[in-house]
């Protein structure tokens, strides 16, 4: 975030967004600001341990309506980045596994099928051609 622009004078029109720090992490906030830096100078200040303030100062003159829209858009975007963080936390392990499977040599990382294979006749044969794989869940 650029904090040296001369447009950030105390009386320059800007939007102030309040962010609940328990809902949106610093990283998610940074990502949100990243996208807004094209049109705004973004300053983040932690008011206290629960609330962060984001000051959006438009790079080009903006109407009050545009500022209000930007504030709404910022809030929505911040919540979305918070969601993305949660999703990543829940899925990064399986994503790594998935990509490892996708790019590994054929057969190396594959799972064998689960469940029972045969019919009752096959299951009664001790030495049948197929090994019966039984799944404890069934």
């Amino acid at each position, binding site marked *: 975030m650029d904090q040296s622009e001369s447009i950030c004078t105390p009386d320059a029109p800007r939007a102030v967004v309040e962010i609940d720090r328990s809902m949106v992490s610093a990283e998610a906030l940074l990502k949100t600001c990243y996208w807004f830096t094209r049109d705004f100078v973004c300053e983040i200040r932690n008011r206290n341990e629960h609330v962060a303030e984001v000051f959006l100062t438009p790079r080009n003159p903006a109407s009050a309506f545009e500022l209000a829209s930007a504030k709404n858009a910022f809030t929505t975007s911040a919540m979305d980045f918070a969601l993305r963080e949660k999703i990543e936390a829940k899925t990064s392990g399986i994503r790594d596994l998935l990509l490892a499977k996708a790019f590994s040599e*054929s*057969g190396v990382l*594959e799972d*064998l*099928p*689960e*469940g*029972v*294979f*045969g*019919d*009752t*006749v*096959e299951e009664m044969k001790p030495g*049948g*051609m*197929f090994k019966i794989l039984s*799944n404890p869940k*069934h």
Partner: protein
Amino acid sequence: MRLTTMGVAGNFETSIVGILTAESLPPDQRTKRIRFLAPCDASDDENLSGYRALLSHDELQSVPNMPFVHRLRESDHLKDGDIVVLEGNAGLVRSLYRPYEQHHHLFVTERCNSNCLMCSQPPKDRDDVDALTARNLELINLITPHPPYLTITGGEPTLLGDNLFTLISQLKLSMPETELHILTNGRTFAWPEYSRRFAELEHPNISLGIPLYSDSAGAHDYVVQARGAFDQTVAGLHQAARNGIRVEVRVVLHKLTIPRLTNLVDYIYRNLTFVEHIALMGLEYTGYTPRNIEALWIDPYDYQDELEEAVAYLAVRNMTVSIYNHQLCVLRPSLWSYARKSISDWKTLYLPECETCSALSACGGLFQWAVKKHSDHIRSISLSQPGVAQKCL
């Protein structure tokens, strides 16, 4: 058309497979034949040794000292060249192969590891594999001329284990140009080892027909009455494709498969892009279907929206799709070009309404058991109806 008949049998040690002949043949041409004796062929007038067995509609005057079945209940379905099996002293005569028919099947077992609600060949948990394999190997030896297509069916053919490989190898040896199609639930192919061994047979002309009934595992498993079946079938399709085995997907259309039909074809397109063909099939009122009819029945006329949407979905993506077992009067004309005459000859029936129909020659007709249950909308199509002339002339 009749498949089996009964008579009184004698002198059988085992089942006998042979080609029917109603004519008298010189001794050196008899080894593969079963001699069908007409009433005027008195059995003591010719020396009958060399034939595999004797058949007669009427009572034979004197008891032969070779395997025979006489006093057949029916015999007008039997023709010269038919290949039949005489099932030992029980007296059952079963037609296995009729050269003049369009569709041919090799029936390999009644066992199955699924139990589909609409199964047209309800499974039996009896190990018939060795007996049927021996019979089928003999049948393969006798089939002449070699047909362009042969469907291997059951039950579940992969339950044969090595015996299926033996049959396929034998077919490869004796009729390599015959295109084989195996109807299987595909579950066994999920085991990579099995798919690999199957591919190693290197039959030049073989494909699998594998049913899939939903994009949702639970719904598919319910239809086939086997837990884990969906997972295994999808994995099986993948392993087969990976080993270069050609696959086709079949969907039987009924109340349980129609609601998510477009979702299913989308699933096939995205996950099973390699399938070379999708067959959308009408319900057969036979086997288990009557017992489960409440859960299954929907008049085909009433699912034309879903069917049209699914077919359009696949067609626009360049996937090959066919509609089987539907009558043209019940299908929307936009779907006629996808309809095939798919009903095996011995199953086909036309209703009285069909007699005046202009589309009769192009239509596949109904199944024989359709007299008991069919669409309420079977009707004669007139030539003046749009699209009829293109399809039927």
